[in-house]
């Protein structure tokens, strides 16, 4: 499964890439450090799944989700964020994301979350209330 990673922190991108590439059937196809670049790569490379931060410089995470989904309505998107307020989670899900995981629990939850949303099933991580 090909994954596009969007996050403005190089360190986070490295960690997430390592977690993803450690799985036999998952691989990071490309990464991006801004929302604009992410939208463009999602369009050009058509990955199976997008894993993204919502706190991005430039075009914000919510706009990026909406744009990616309007270019490809079937695109499965997993968001990573340290903000877990319910109102924000609702906004992100309504924009079109299928999963929401706290960055702090990515180590345990990233892979299960990817598998869940790849199967079309919503995934809300620990401490995230819909």
């Amino acid at each position, binding site marked *: 499964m090909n994954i596009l990673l969007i996050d403005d922190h190089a360190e986070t991108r490295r960690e997430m890439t390592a977690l993803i590439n450690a799985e036999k059937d998952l691989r990071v196809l490309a990464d991006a450090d801004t929302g604009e670049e992410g939208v463009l790569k999602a369009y050009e490379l058509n990955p199976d799944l997008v894993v993204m931060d919502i706190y991005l410089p430039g075009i914000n995470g919510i706009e990026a989700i909406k744009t990616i989904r309007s270019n490809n309505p079937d695109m499965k998107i997993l968001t990573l964020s340290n903000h877990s*307020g*319910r109102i924000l989670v609702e906004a992100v899900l309504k924009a079109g994301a299928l999963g929401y995981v706290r960055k702090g629990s990515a180590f345990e939850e990233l892979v299960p979350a990817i598998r869940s949303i790849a199967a079309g099933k919503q995934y809300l991580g620990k401490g995230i209330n819909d």
Partner: protein
Amino acid sequence: MSIRILLADDHKIMRDGLKSLVEKETDITVIGEAETGKTTVSMAQKLSPNIVIMDISMPDLNGIEATRKIIKTNPNVKIVALSAHADQHFIREMMTAGASAYLLKDTAYEELIRAIREVMKGKKYLSPDIARGVLDAYVKLARPLSANPAFVVLTDREREVLQMIAEGKSTKEIAGEIELSVKTIETHRRNIMEKLDLHSIAELTKYAIREGVTSVDA
């Protein structure tokens, strides 16, 4: 006419999130965004929004001070506090500063919309999780002040009987309603009169209304 909202939060993602949700309401428009307390105050003055959705922790001037300043210069602006803190201290400060509503960022979006609509009607709004804490604090404060004899001297049963007397019910009716004998009700009535040093049904009625045991329009 559309409800004009100013969003004040130092986290851009929170403003973006709120905006994306609120924009789906046909009668609500986000007219501005501020990321510091001072900007919030100056934008509120310039734009005269109907509502400011106000975060509490903001740089240079916190949401409580910003609320105080806005309410002072423009008391018509309604402030809806949207905070990560459920702390009684913050709620009290925010509400005494003049906020009309207090909600947690963890409440559902629907709740925020409900609060906005209530506040537009001139009402105050606390989300249930906030209201519970506020009530607990209120009860703690209010208990020692309760010198009202009707609530101290009388038993629950006597208070119930007093209310029914004040509502014009006869001894027989009261007896029927609470399934006690006429004689017991009469005893209750005598005890109430003795305890309160009142000597007629008219006095009892007047007393019950004055002390809030029953309401006038009951």
